[in-house]
Structure formats: structure tokens, C-alpha cells
């Protein structure tokens, strides 16, 4: 219950952290709200996986609290870079936003590839984002010193509390008319990708410096 309440009370912050990815994602496909809800559930499944991974970490590490270590910087930097790559690819793969018309078969195949579970990976990588509410949950679990199930349950209920705030977002599907908004959303995904790329780079450089 404590995890759920913590999630519920901090969910707005989670919403603002996920919105830069989810809002352009929902607008970029130009699909209706129903389709967007399916995508949201995939996203949430990914996010839950990320949270449960944190639950395991919190239990395993026991006294682990973010201490600005080299390992921690790499741990967060690498997912950021992968996330950046995914966002950039997704944002710029369509013909409306494509940066170049690469003629190689490999390039064309990459642009045509449309994985059904991309939202899951977006959710997973957003779940690994060290946002303030997650930091609170992490601190709570590590300080209480419970067993693995307690830790997993805490993060699951925390996830449930925060997920409530994401439920209205698929309604953005009502703006699915026209190419303009889709193009803007795809560009926005690319720009968000660049932002995460910078973040990842900064984390990695910090990690190297700390080593």
C-alpha cells in the first residue's frame, strides 16, 4: 500500500518524465485512441519490467543508494544511449522526416522495419530513467531492508500508483488527422532522442572520469 500511495502522490512527476516520449509517440503514428491504448499497455509492460529490475537491484544491493560511482554512471548512460538510438531511428525513419534517402538495401530494410513491441522497449528504457519518484522508491526499499518479494511488490505497487497518470495520454489519438502533426511528432521524437543521447554521453563521460 505504501508503494502505491508513493506512486500516486508522485505520479505527476512520472507523467512529466514520460510525456516527452509518449506524447510524440502517440501523435506520430496517427492512429486512433483505441490503438494508442494498446500501445500504452505495451509501454507500461516495458516500464513495469524496468521497475521490477530496479526492485531486484534494490533488494540485491541492500544498502545501495546512488553514490555517483563510475558503475552507476555507466549503468544509466548505456540505456540512455540505446534509448536515444531507438528514438532517433523511430523519429527519422518515415519518409516525411527521413534525413537522407540511403539507397543501400540494409538502410531501406531498417526504415521499413516496424517492430510491434517498440513501445515495450520505450517503456523499459523510460523505466530505467532515474527520475525523482523512482529515487524515492529506491531509497524506501533499501532503507527498509526487506526481502526480494517485498522489494518487488513495493515496486509493482509503486508502478500501479504512477501508471494511473499515464492513462489519459492515449486520448491524444483524437488529433490523428493530417500529416502535419505526425511530421511534427516524428521530428519531436528525433529531438528527444538527441537529448537522451547527450544525457547518455554526459553520464558515460562522468563514469570514465570517476574511474
Amino acid at each position: 500500500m505504501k508503494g502505491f500511495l508513493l506512486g500516486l502522490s508522485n505520479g505527476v512527476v512520472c507523467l512529466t518524465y514520460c510525456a516527452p516520449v509518449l506524447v510524440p509517440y502517440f501523435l506520430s503514428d496517427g492512429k486512433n485512441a483505441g490503438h494508442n491504448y494498446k500501445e500504452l499497455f505495451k509501454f507500461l509492460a516495458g516500464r513495469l519490467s524496468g521497475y521490477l529490475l530496479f526492485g531486484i537491484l534494490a533488494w540485491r544491493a541492500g544498502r545501495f543508494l546512488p553514490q555517483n560511482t563510475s558503475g552507476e554512471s555507466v549503468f544509466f548512460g548505456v540505456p540512455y544511449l540505446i534509448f536515444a538510438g531507438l528514438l532517433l531511428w523511430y523519429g527519422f525513419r518515415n519518409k516525411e522526416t527521413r534525413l537522407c534517402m540511403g539507397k543501400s538495401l540494409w538502410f531501406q530494410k531498417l526504415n521499413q522495419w516496424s517492430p510491434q513491441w517498440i513501445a515495450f522497449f520505450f517503456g523499459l528504457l523510460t523505466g530505467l530513467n532515474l527520475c525523482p519518484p523512482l529515487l524515492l522508491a529506491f531509497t524506501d526499499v533499501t532503507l527498509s531492508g526487506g526481502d526480494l518479494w517485498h522489494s518487488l511488490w513495493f515496486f509493482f505497487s509503486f508502478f500501479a500508483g504512477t501508471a494511473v497518470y499515464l492513462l489519459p495520454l492515449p486520448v491524444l489519438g483524437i488529433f490523428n488527422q493530417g500529416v502535419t502533426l505526425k511530421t511534427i511528432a516524428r521530428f519531436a521524437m528525433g529531438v528527444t532522442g538527441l537529448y537522451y543521447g547527450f544525457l547518455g554521453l554526459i553520464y558515460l563521460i562522468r563514469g570514465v572520469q570517476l574511474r
Partner: protein
Amino acid sequence: MSVLADKPVTIRPIKNFIKSVLLTLPMLLLTLVLLTGGAGFPTDVLGLISFAINYLLVNSLFFMMIYTGRTDSYRAVLFVFFAVCFIIFFIGNLLEVRGSMLLSRENLFKGETPFCHMVIPMAIIPAVLTRTIIFPGSLLNGFAAVATMLIIWFGASLILGRGFCSWGCFYGGLEDGISRLRRKPSRLKIDLKWRYLPFAVLLFIVLTSAATLSPTYCAWLCPFKAVTEFEPLSSWPALIFTVVFFSLFLGLVIILPFLTRRRTQCGLFCPFGAFQSLTNKICSSEVRIDPGRCINCGRCIEVCPTFSMDRDSLAKGKTTITCCKCGKCIDHCPRKAIYYHTKGTPLHHKTRLLFLYPAFLFLATFSGGIIQKAIHRVLLLVTTGSMLIG
């Protein structure tokens, strides 16, 4: 040539001259009041010279706008001069107050950062959610306070809409000037899909500013940090940011405008411009095309600096939502088929004045203090060897 044939040629310029003088009189009076700020003329000699130069320049340009019927050529002179003076004034101010252009943590905590209009779109959601302005500046006190800038922006948006970007933005003049250096554009063609990028950057910065409760555009992307203030290069992240700022400045404000003769930062990147485009929907002025006179020569599409004209918009007799109302298309149209138009009035070239008075008055007064102080600094530099006051 007969006497009868000569008559209109000799008389019209005199009539036009007198008419232009009469129409300039209100501007002479208004700028006199607004540029002195109701506090009288400057008492020191250099201050008085700076005031006189500014006052004469502003009113000569307005007179020429009326006399020649051309808008953009004379607007651009003041707009470019404003941008250059802003940099001289701003850097001089920073050197006096802080001793350098570097923005330290101490300055941020003290709330000493001058507020810039670019922050406005980023500040809205956090202001609603947390009732705070996410910018390390002062709400009411000091140079460029938040409240002052908000009031100026709001008033200008109601009258000018995105015209703010051609008649008020103190950065826009830099690329406007650089875009005019070449006689003809290079063969470099920019795909019109990139016109959507500023809206994407706007969406991104609005959402990330809400998440991080900090102005992400200023922290990560602002090209004009290169000529205003930036963090000391004391860490890798600061170095990365500085590389980003300078690359964007070089690419979007210098190289691309020079090659394409377009305002590429304004048209392809600036999120404030995208935000300001939305105010074009509610403001009273717009640029319209008379389909009856238009011969579809495409000259307006060629010259538009912000990519705000295309075949579709021409067919509809309108510009796109991103029009900055600079007047370049109006000046270049061979059939005079493009108009400054006030909503609710018929299409007529006389309505140009309804736009021109408030727009020019805004540019003259918003730039006035800055231009005057910058000229003062340059005169100081020439006479004393230092442009710092005191």
C-alpha cells in the same frame, strides 16, 4: 516629352514628400516621448549624441518607409542595427556587472539572469503546476525582469502576432543581416519539411521543461548563448553544451542564412517562433494576397526568409501560420498583390499604415534604449578607450 506628360512626374514626388512628412509627424512626437522615457534629454554630451543619432535614425527610416512605400528594406536596417547593438549593450552590461560573459552558479542562485522571451513557452506548464517561474531571474527587479518582459510580449503578440520575430526579437536581426550579404542564394535547397522542426523543438522543450522544471532550451539548445552568456568551461558537460551552442550559432545563424538568404534559425529551429506563430491566429494583423492581381510568378515564395509562403498558401491568398510580417514579399511583389491587412477591413494598400504605426513604434521603443546605450558605449570606447561605464 510634353509638359502635360511631365506634370504627374514632377508634382507627385512633392505631394508624396509632404504627405510622408505629415504622416511621420506622429512618429516624431511619439518616439520623442518614448525614447526620453518622459525624463527629459540626457545631460551628458555622449548621452545626448547617442540619443540624437538614435532619434534621427529611427525617424528617417520611418519617413523612408512612408515615402518609398517599401517596408522590409528600412525595417531591416533598424532590425539588424538593433541586434548588433543588443550584443554590444548586453556584453558591456555583463562585463560591468560580472566582469565576464560567464554565468556562474552564484549568479543563477542569486536570480541575476536577465529574462529572455525565449523562455516564455517553457515557463507555462511549470507555472501552472508549481506556481513558479522556472528561470533564475527576478520577477520585478533589475535589468530585464520577468514581469516586464511578459507584459511587453503579451502586448506585442496581440498586435503583431509572429510579427514580434521581425519587429521585436533582439536576436533575429543577426541572421536577417547575414542573410542579406549575398546577392543570390546558393544552389543549396532546403526541404520544406524542415519547417515543422521548430514545432517539434517547441513540443520537446515544453514537455522536458515540465519534467525537469528547468528551461531546457536555454540549458541545451540556445544558439544565442554564443553571443550572450554561457557557463564556465569547467566540466565535460559544460564543454559539450558550449560546443552545441556554438555549432548551432555557426550553422543556423551564420552559414545557412549566408548561403540560402533565409532566416534559417527563425524558420527551421526557433521554438519561440513556433509558439509565436500560434499568436498569429489571434492578433489583428496579417499578410494577405489578392488572387485577382497575383500572377503566380512565385517571387514571394523565393524571397520569404522564413519559408512562410508556398504554392498552397498562395492559392488560398494567405501566408502560412509562420509568417513574420517582415514585408519582404510585399516589397518584391511585381504586381503589388500582397498587402498588410487588418482583420475585418477590405484589402487595400492604405491599411498598411494600421500595421506600420504600431509595429514600427514597438520596434523603435523596444530597441531604443538598447541602441542608445550601445552607441554610448561605442562612443565611450572611441573617446576613452573603454566601453565600460564607471
